[in-house]
């Protein structure tokens, strides 16, 4: 039983570095996708949706990947603290932004938004 556990630990030590690096890479690609969304979408409210990809899935994947790469429990607890901060503060900041824009009178675009070809297909 002890040998089996030692084997399992060895396999885990072998697999966790590639897995963590892969998760980091995936999360950073999600961050870039969110940025592309921020650049493409037409108005402030829709850009907020794209930015929240970065804040939720991108950040969670990168932080989880770094947790797998980390050398000790101290680093894991720090990463967990960052995760909690980001998950608590990012929706609050998004809501504050949306509320401020709404109060300032920025009107959202309502209804179907598409490129000309897509509209041609619909019509």
């Amino acid at each position, binding site marked *: 039983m002890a040998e089996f556990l030692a084997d399992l630990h060895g396999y885990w030590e072998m697999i966790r570095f*590639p897995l963590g*690096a*892969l998760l*980091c*890479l995936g*999360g*950073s*690609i999600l*961050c*870039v996708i*969110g*940025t*592309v969304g*921020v*650049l493409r979408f037409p108005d*402030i409210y829709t*850009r*907020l949706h794209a*930015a929240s990809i*970065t*804040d939720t899935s*991108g*950040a969670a994947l*990168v*932080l989880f*990947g*770094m947790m797998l*790469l*980390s*050398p000790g429990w101290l*680093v894991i607890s*720090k*990463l967990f*603290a*960052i995760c909690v*901060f*980001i998950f608590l*503060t*990012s929706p*609050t*900041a998004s809501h*504050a*932004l949306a*509320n*401020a*824009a709404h*109060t*300032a009178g*920025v009107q959202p675009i309502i209804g179907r938004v598409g490129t000309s070809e897509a509209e041609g297909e619909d019509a």
Partner: protein
Amino acid sequence: MTAAALIAILFGMALLLLRAFIGPTLYDRILAVNSFGTKTVLALGLLGFVMDRPEFLDIAITYALINFVSTIAILKFFRYRSFQVPLVRRGQGGNADG
């Protein structure tokens, strides 16, 4: 592969700067800066792992906290044009409009 992730995040930060420059309204720019801060936290953490010094995470934690506070402070300043206005909860007296 961690270095590749770091480069990807830096690329995303460069793209976000573009939005911060061309953003038509003030709120687009604040959104870009806020998202830039989140990416900075991730980039700082990854930089620590690339350089084998996870102590960088302390700076990342501090940045995560300051980023949120600064976003709220900037929004409050552009709404009231002053930091001196107390934020009063609705329904507890006062004439706060939101």
